[in-house]
C-alpha cells in the first residue's frame, strides 16, 4: 500500500455514493490520477474545499491493491484561484483548461511541462482581462507540449517544407509563410493549398497573420506569451482552427469556452463528416 505525495491541481470532482467524491487530479510527480475521498461531501469533512476544481494543492494518497482508484488521505491547499469561482467567464475558461488537460493526458504519465502550463494558465486567467485569448494561448501551448503539437513549419499532409521567410520575420527564426495555407484538424496542422483542396475532411482558412500567430504562440518563451495579441480575422481563424483541432484530439466536443454565449448556438466550425472522430 504505497503512500504517494505530490503537488497537484484538481481537474474534476464528482459525487460518489452517499457522501464521497471521486476526484481527478493532474499531479506533478505522477501525472493524471483519480482517487476516492471518503466522506468528502459531509459538512465536517476534513477535505473542505480542497477537492474543488482548479485548486492547487499538496496531495497525499495511497494505492489499494487491485483498485484503479487511489484513496485520498490529506489535501493541503496552496492556491485556490478565488476569482475563478466568482466570474462565469473565468470559470468557463478555467473549465476548458482542465477539460483539455484531462482529455489529452493518460493516467500515470507525468509531464512537469503540462503541470506548469496548467498552473500558469490558471494564474494568467486571474491576472488577464481577456479570458478567451488566455484560453486560446493556453490550448496552443498545451497541445505543443503533447504529441498533438499543431504542425506549422511544413505541410501536415504531404510533408513539404514551407519556405523560410526572407529576411527572417521573427527573432526565434521559426516563422514560415505559405500562400493559401489551410488548417486541417484531422491532419493535425497547416496544410499547403493543393493538399487542402484534396482533403476529404473540412479544412479551415488560415491567413498569413493567423499562421504567424500560431507559430509565435508555439515558440515564444512562456514569459513573453502575454505580449501576444490577436484581433479580428486572425483571432477568429485561430480560434476556429484550435477549437476544431481540440475536438479531433479529444474525440468529442468539449464544453464551449464562452459557456453562456454559446447557449443554444450551433458551433460555426468543426468537422463536416462526423461530430465524433476516432483517433
Amino acid at each position, binding site marked *: 500500500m504505497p503512500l504517494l505525495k505530490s503537488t497537484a491541481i484538481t481537474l*474534476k*470532482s464528482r459525487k460518489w*455514493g*452517499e457522501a464521497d467524491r471521486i476526484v481527478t487530479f493532474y499531479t506533478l510527480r505522477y501525472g493524471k490520477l483519480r482517487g476516492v475521498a471518503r466522506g468528502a461531501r459531509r*459538512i*465536517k469533512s*476534513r*477535505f*473542505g*474545499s*480542497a477537492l*474543488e*476544481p*482548479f485548486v492547487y494543492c499538496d496531495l497525499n494518497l495511497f494505492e489499494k491493491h487491485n483498485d484503479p482508484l487511489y484513496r485520498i488521505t490529506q489535501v493541503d*491547499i496552496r492556491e*485556490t484561484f*478565488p476569482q475563478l*469561482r*466568482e*466570474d*462565469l467567464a473565468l*470559470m*468557463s475558461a*478555467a*473549465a476548458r483548461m*482542465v*477539460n483539455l488537460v484531462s482529455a489529452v493526458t493518460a493516467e500515470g504519465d507525468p509531464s512537469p511541462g503540462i503541470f506548469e502550463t496548467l498552473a500558469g494558465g490558471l494564474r494568467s486567467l486571474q491576472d488577464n482581462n481577456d479570458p478567451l485569448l488566455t484560453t486560446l494561448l493556453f490550448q496552443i501551448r498545451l497541445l505543443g507540449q503533447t504529441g498533438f503539437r499543431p504542425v506549422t513549419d511544413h505541410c501536415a499532409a504531404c510533408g513539404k517544407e514551407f519556405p523560410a521567410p526572407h529576411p527572417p520575420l521573427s527573432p526565434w527564426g521559426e516563422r514560415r509563410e505559405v500562400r493559401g495555407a489551410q488548417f486541417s484538424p484531422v491532419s493535425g496542422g497547416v496544410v499547403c493549398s493543393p493538399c487542402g483542396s484534396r482533403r476529404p475532411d473540412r479544412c479551415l482558412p488560415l491567413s498569413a497573420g493567423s499562421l504567424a500567430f500560431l507559430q509565435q504562440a508555439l515558440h515564444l518563451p512562456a514569459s513573453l506569451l502575454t505580449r501576444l495579441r490577436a484581433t479580428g480575422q486572425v483571432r477568429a481563424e485561430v480560434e476556429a482552427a484550435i477549437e476544431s483541432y481540440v475536438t479531433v484530439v479529444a474525440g468529442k466536443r*468539449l*464544453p*464551449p469556452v464562452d*459557456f*453562456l454565449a454559446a*447557449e*443554444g448556438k450551433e458551433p460555426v466550425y468543426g468537422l463536416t463528416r462526423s461530430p465524433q472522430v476516432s483517433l
Partner: protein
Amino acid sequence: MGVDQQSLLFRLIRELVRLPGIGQKTAQRLAFHLLKAEREEALRLAEAIQAVKEGVTFCRRCRNIAEGELCEFCLDPKRDQTKILVVEEPSTLYAIERSGGYRGLYHVLLGALSPLDGIGPADIHAQDLLDRLKEGETQEVIVATNPTIEGEATAIYLTKVMKPYGVRVSRIAYGIPVGMDIEYADEVTLIKSIEGRRDL
C-alpha cells in the same frame, strides 16, 4: 456458497445492488430478510415502490416532488408567498424544511449549471423561476445552491438573470459548521466566513 445466478433470489439481489449505498453483502442481507418476512410485509414494500413511481410527479410551479399538480408547500396558504428559496435538488429542500427555520416557498432547479460538463441554463429549470417572478408576488429570492463550482456558477447566473425583475436576491451564508473547531477549517471556508461576518 454463491447464489445461483439464474435464480429469482439472485434477480432480487441484483436489483437491490443498483440502489445507492447498497453493496453486494447488504443486498444479500436485505434479500434474505424479505425472503423470511411475512408475504404481506414484502408485498407492502413492492406496492409502495409501485405507488411512488405511478403517483409521484414534479410540482408544476416549483418542480419539487408532488402527488398532484402542486406540491404540499405551494398548496400551503400559511407559507410566506413573498419569498422563494432556490435549491438544486428536492433532497436539499427537505433538509432545509427539517431545520424548521424557513417558512417561505421553494423552487427546485433539478440540476445545476456546469461549465465543466457543458450543462447550461436550458438543462435546469431556471426559466420556470423567472416565470414565477413575472407573476409579481415575490419580493426576495434566496439562492441556496451548493457551495461547489456548479452551485456557484448557478448562483452567479441566477443573480444576473433575476436583476431586471427588481427582487432582492440573496445567497445563503458560507462559514464554519456549528460545533467545529475553527483551526480545522480550510482556507476558502475561513476567508468566506470572514467576508460574510455580521455585526453582533
